[in-house]
């Protein structure tokens, strides 16, 4: 399985990672060998096997629809870099 330089740039962009142009061949090689490693599983015959959504063969425990969390904005916002009027502030986003 071969990952190209174009793939590496696309993956880095989706993950919002800034990578040096000179490192791209290295990442391409590493990502390719990870995929090759996993690709060994393609040799297993999975005909008739149900896809697995979760390794634990259990189903979800549900919670009752009640409000259990009260307002802790002050404490939660203490860790935020910037806030105003109860809002978290981020660099301006324009659609």
């Amino acid at each position, binding site marked *: 399985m071969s990952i190209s330089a174009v793939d590496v740039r696309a993956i880095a962009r*989706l993950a919002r990672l800034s990578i040096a142009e000179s490192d791209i061949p290295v990442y391409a090689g590493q990502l390719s060998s990870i995929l090759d490693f996993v690709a060994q599983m393609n040799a297993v015959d999975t005909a008739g096997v149900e896809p697995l*959504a979760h390794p634990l063969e259990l189903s979800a425990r549900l919670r009752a*629809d009640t409000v259990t*969390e009260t*307002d802790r*904005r002050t404490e939660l916002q203490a860790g935020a870099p910037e806030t*105003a009027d109860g809002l978290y*502030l*981020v660099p301006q*986003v324009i659609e």
Partner: protein
Amino acid sequence: MEWQPVIGLEVHAQLATQSKIFSGAATAYGAAPNVQACGVDLGLPGVLPVLNAQAVELAVRFGLAIDAEIAPCSVFARKNYFYPDLPKGYQISQYEHPIVGCGHLRITLDERELDIGITRAHLEEDAGKSVHGVVSGRTGIDLNRAGTPLLEIVSEPVMHSAREAVAYMRELHRLVRHLGICDGNMQEGSFRCDANVSLRPAGSDTLGTRTEIKNLNSFRFVERAIEFEIERQRDILEDGGKVVQETRLYDPDKDETRTMRTKEDAHDYRYFPDPDLLPVSVSADDLARIRATLPELPAARIARYVDDYGLGREDAALLVNEPAVAAFFEASLGPLEVPAKAVANWITGEVFGALNRAGLAVDDIPITPAMLNQLVARIGDGTVSGKGAKTVFQAMWSEGGLPDDIIEAQGLKQVSDSGAIDAIVDEVIAANPAQVQDYLAGKEKILGYLVGQAMKASKGKANPAAVSALLVDKLKGD
């Protein structure tokens, strides 16, 4: 060339739960920023989502109402993208295994019945809200809405006009409100939709390139946006051009759609099953229990009003639009026996008018069904005239009280016994010899004038039907 529009809708209905889909924070609308956003909603490290049982219940209720297959096992997946109002960097949604499978909804448009296929409906969490203009150069983030449960309802691309799309959306709106799964408040964003629109040559069965119009939050905008988009695509195709697959936004002020993002920068969401959440199972017992709680569905209720009460379809639909109005209507049909049509007319006329003038919601109707029932009964048995009834209605709307007491207190009782009317009628005949001559000469329309004179003389209390009958008797009898 003749073009056929093809439209599919994705409707987001906010589920009527008290708490969020994966956390115990409240979902109430209108709270101060971020007071309803806990660690789970903020995506803090170390927290885990736990699914809200009621969100599952409401989704299943919807699925059963559209005859869909409910997945015995459905799976939550992560939809990955970066945006400041999505703190985790992914939205928890359902992808390959939605809880509600293929179903359908019957709609009526211009007396035609259409069956609209619904591809699927899945559970997901809402994102937060961006607030602009609070601090210059910054965007404010309010995460109260983050984690609010949504049911995304995806239709088949089977609608062919903006009106069909709106009729489907209205029927869906009626349905979710009747089921009590969504409050349907469009101003608050509880019920909103994305529209997929494409054109193809009439008669073709391959789909053309589509555009998606995002975030339409009123029936009117849905209709206008789709109409605009159909025209825009037709112009491009007629000129020999190609429609570009893209996401567009509708601008209600300019009444046009414009590009938001094109296919080149379309998101690559890299869905994968969320390892924090186990698959959701819904048993046959759950299905039977939930099925037993389903109310009468709006389409059936409208049909019943038409068949059993002789209402027109439009009037029936008007009553059924709001479950609270339908309940008020049904409660107003007793204890006194009254014609259902008259009750319906009072509700769609006087009650709706008064609500509008007062700016009240239907849940706040200040009169009771028993009051309206008695009022309609008193018109029927001749106690009060139609005009007097409106006075009674105004009084009970603003001050309360039963019609019988108001009629008594304000002296609105109609005079129907011939003894009392007799004298008045004699007076009118004596005072209007010219009109009486005209009437006897064959100008029957003049009778209305004479009835009017008698009504005036009785200060409006005489029963006009009784006056009219007596006048005719006396004039013709002479």
